[in-house]
């Protein structure tokens, strides 16, 4: 496809980069100026992302605002950006959490300039992952994110910082280098199938969609699938590759944790949605019981282990394992409901964990510790603080009215639908066991709340504490706003996800030739979620209105297959009008 110029997405990517360059030329000891500049750039980035949101058309699953330029033409590697519903919210979450984290990071007192450079580098890497449409570009940003996190932990971290930072980097690098080999193999397959060398996600997915890519290389699919899956399993993190996370969480500097906890793990779940489901449909279906099982283990295991943690940060770390378990549970249920829930839960986890870590920061600033043996009885001294903490916690538990409820409910609902119909060799016990995770979440969250706020103060420091300042309350209430907004009126957030989730699901379920293709602009999903052929349109044009010419594949939105069928049915037998 032809090259386009730079656009608004490149601008968004450039804002943190310019921020880094500006910071580099500021004097090291001029802390107020550094903080102001950092704040300004994070706000600019947020502003630009709002422009992206305004330009976004939720009626299509195709990538929008696509920018394309050659990077390494010899290998078919491009600089290609674009967004769809799945990435839109993660982009917004990234820029929003950067604002919060930059503000909260005013408490960092040493090496401030380097700290903010790391923060912006992380923001840029995350935005890059969420917006890139070229495999190598995704990998570049995926790995680039390791560098700032490594330094944030190793330089500004807590007691065990070196160990935690090394473990984090080695774990994630070890997993993702094989993804790089897998990516090169994919481009090799593209070369064999289509005749051109390309790392273009759109082109490769297009070849998967019409069945040409895997036609002669089906035996390679599981190999490359696991090469990708390993990277995402470590990142998400899924059991049993989660062990880096509690160490990293408990040793990273608290203000940076607002970002590190909320965002980098999303690269894993986003990678599953963006790459794994569309590119390896056949293998994915074969391993669904295993993957769903691992998601459930993560939910239960994360919750149980969280309940015995002696430290606030570690507890939230393990609770993240459990929450991300709900995300993967929803995604791997491969039902529309479940996938909507999983992708929505990504966003919720970012907000509620971000808020929890903001609370941790307030505790750590006042008491210099987050160990339960030094907490207790905070409620009396800090009533306002305990209310905010309670809200964050209830969102994590999945209390109706908070965003966590919607996400977890949809994910469980999806898992239920999928297991009830015995698809992919699943049975109902999968969802029953997963359901207990909600109850277990209440156990450890309440334990955490009780240890922190009730009982007698365990140190004298606590009796001298003052409640939150106005600035801190304002900071926290921006996040609380989204917790309730997402819980009471979730369609704001669910609507843009709809088409992309539907398309991703069809990419992984439909037979070759009837899959949606990112490359083919004449395919579209109608409002019932059916795949239809439409009159030709242009990329980056108006994609919202389309003229349907032909039905390609009719979808049952809520069940993967007709619920009455026991054996996995033939796709071809799906009759028009069979909406359930």
């Amino acid at each position, binding site marked *: 496809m032809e090259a386009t110029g730079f656009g608004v997405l490149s601008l968004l990517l450039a804002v943190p980069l310019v921020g880094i360059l500006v910071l580099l030329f500021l004097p090291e000891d001029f802390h107020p100026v550094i903080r102001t500049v950092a704040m300004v750039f994070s706000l600019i980035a947020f502003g630009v992302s709002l422009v992206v949101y305004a330009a976004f058309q939720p009626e299509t699953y195709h990538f929008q605002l696509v920018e394309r330029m050659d990077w390494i033409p010899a*290998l078919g590697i491009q600089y290609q950006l674009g967004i769809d519903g799945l990435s839109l919210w993660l982009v917004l979450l990234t820029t929003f959490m950067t604002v919060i984290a930059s503000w909260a990071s005013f408490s960092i007192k040493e090496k401030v300039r380097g700290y903010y450079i790391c923060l912006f580098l992380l923001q840029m890497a995350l935005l890059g992952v969420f917006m890139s449409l070229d495999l190598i570009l995704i990998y570049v940003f995926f790995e680039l994110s390791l560098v700032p996190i490594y330094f944030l932990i190793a330089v500004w971290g807590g007691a065990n910082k070196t160990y935690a930072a*090394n473990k984090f980097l080695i774990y994630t690098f070890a997993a993702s*280098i094989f993804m790089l080999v897998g990516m090169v193999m994919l481009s090799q397959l593209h070369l064999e199938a289509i005749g051109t060398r390309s790392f273009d996600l759109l082109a490769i997915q297009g070849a998967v969609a019409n069945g040409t890519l895997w036609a002669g290389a089906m035996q390679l699919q599981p190999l490359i699938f696991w090469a990708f899956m390993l990277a995402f399993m470590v990142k998400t993190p899924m059991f049993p590759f989660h062990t880096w996370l509690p160490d990293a969480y408990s040793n990273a500097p608290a203000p940076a944790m607002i970002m590190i906890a909320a965002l980098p793990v999303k690269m894993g779940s986003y990678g599953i949605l963006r790459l794994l489901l569309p590119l390896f449909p056949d293998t994915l279906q074969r391993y669904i019981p295993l993957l769903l099982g691992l998601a459930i283990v993560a939910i239960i295991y994360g919750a149980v282990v969280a309940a015995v943690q002696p430290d606030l940060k570690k507890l939230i770390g393990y609770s993240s394992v459990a929450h991300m378990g709900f995300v993967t549970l929803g995604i791997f249920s491969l039902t529309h409901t479940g996938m909507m829930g999983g992708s929505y839960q990504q966003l919720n986890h970012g907000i509620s964990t971000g808020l929890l870590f903001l609370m941790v920061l307030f505790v750590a600033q006042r008491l210099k510790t987050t160990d339960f043996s030094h907490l207790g009885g905070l409620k009396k001294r800090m009533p306002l603080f305990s209310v905010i903490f309670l809200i964050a916690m209830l969102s994590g538990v999945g209390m109706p009215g908070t965003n966590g409820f919607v996400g977890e409910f949809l994910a469980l609902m999806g898992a239920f639908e999928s297991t009830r119909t015995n698809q992919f060799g699943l049975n109902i016990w999968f969802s029953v066991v997963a359901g207990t995770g909600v109850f277990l979440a209440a156990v450890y969250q309440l334990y955490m709340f009780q240890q922190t706020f009730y009982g007698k103060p365990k140190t004298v420091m606590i009796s001298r504490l003052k409640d939150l300042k106005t600035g801190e309350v304002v900071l926290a209430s921006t996040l609380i706003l989204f917790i309730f907004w997402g819980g009471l009126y979730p369609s704001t957030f669910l609507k843009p996800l709809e088409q992309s989730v539907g398309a991703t699901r069809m990419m992984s379920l439909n037979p070759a030739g009837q899959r949606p293709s990112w490359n083919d602009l004449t395919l579209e999903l109608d409002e019932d979620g059916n795949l239809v052929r439409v009159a030709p349109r242009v990329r980056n044009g108006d994609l919202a209105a389309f003229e349907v010419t032909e039905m390609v594949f009719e979808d049952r939105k809520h069940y993967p297959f007709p619920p009455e069928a026991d054996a996995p049915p033939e796709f071809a037998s799906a009759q028009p009008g069979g909406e359930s």
Partner: protein
Amino acid sequence: MTYTIPEVHWESILPVIIVISTGVLALILEMLRPKQNNNGVVLVSLVGLIAAMAFLVPQIGSESIESFGAMVFRDGVSVILQIILVGACFLTFCFSEGYLREKRIPFAEFYPLALWATSGAMLMVLTNSLMMLFIGLEVMSIALYCLSGMAKNELRSEESAMKYFLLGAFASAFLLFGMAFVYGATGSLSLSAVSETLTFHMDDMGVIMMLGVGLILVGFCFKASLVPFHQWTPDVYQGAPTNVTAFMSAIAKIAAFGALYRVLAGAFPLMDFWFPLLVMVAIVTMTVGNLAALVQQDVKRTLGYSAIAQAGYLLVALLSHFRNPEAVSLNATLYYLLVYSTMTLGAFAVISMVARQGREGTRLRDLNGLWSRSPLAAVALAFCMLSLIGIPPTAGFVGKLFIFNDALAAGLPLLAIALAVNSVISVFYYLGIMKAAFVTDENLPQGESAPAHVGMGFVLSFSVVAMIGFAVFVAPVSQVFSRATGDITSYEVEIPEPDPDAASPAAASLSAN
């Protein structure tokens, strides 16, 4: 019989002549001004290198030329490699002076000797004749032996020079022995004659040629520090003065791989013999280098083992090219050589800063608190380490991506996976070095380091900019490489009669691909 004067093509040899004469000039200048500072010598050397570069750059993309009676063979590969060699020497000179003063090494002969070593390396990549390869190798090696021992008061330095010399002499003997076999079989010293002989007389010459080529490979594997001929590397890297280590790690590696490339191209019909051997060597080299690096305490020694591992990566790139020269270009090898020299020079430049008051500072703890003392140095070190690991967006990542791509395109997935596994192992020790510079350990005394002077500042900034620049602007760089080496798609000798059975098995299997 009439004797014809061989055709002389001055342009191709001019850069080498400039470098040699700059060395002579630098030596004379040093003698004329004893007991003075070396600034004049450095200046002259740098100007000479710039001049050589100015004559090299226009040669990119010009056609291959054989002159001086087939002694000099200039093609795209030799031009590119010479440019990298001259650039590496230039960077070394930029940061050497501060280090030599700090270490109190009154050895201004460093500059002329290093220039001559460079000229030897340039000759090695500028020829297709075994004789010239040997002369170039010896010119380079003897200068390097002297340089390793130039810190006369240090036992380590003396030891490293001795070790390097003795083992190097052994390797040269192997090389010469192999050349004798080849000459005996073919009656010619030219590598193109070797490949002709192999194509047409495989049956009667096969065994003796195998012996000859095998011994030659031993010689160059030694210089490229490939396992099992690597044992000298960590000792010499550790013992030699740091600027010499930097110089050597770049120059010797480029020259050795240039020579290895020529020899393998000449011995292409024997591919069935050397290819599986070198695949083994590549895997073992990567693994041994990385595993041994894990347990080192001394930064220079660690980087010595890392140099071994990186040689393995380079060999993967080279082997992928030879496996399928039509589909896999030489770009990956050249690009990785370029990137490797830059990052290794950058890393050693930072290490050389830690030396204070005549004492070498090469333990990990000497780097403690480097970030507070000299942020630029610490950042440069971090970029070099990240690039050596292969983490984007550094050039080392793009280089590794090229190698992965080549290995898979050539149908060598085993090498690609071995490379991936080794990249993971390498994270441990590279991170250790990076951590030492950034994470201040209060329990240890703060190390000391020299302030960055202009030359050092230039080298450090250059390595940072290059690590990003080579990655972002990889398209123009590889375009230059393609212009220089794009016509190299086959190493088979044209066979006059159309008889498929006459082609060597390797060539046959190749055309089947």
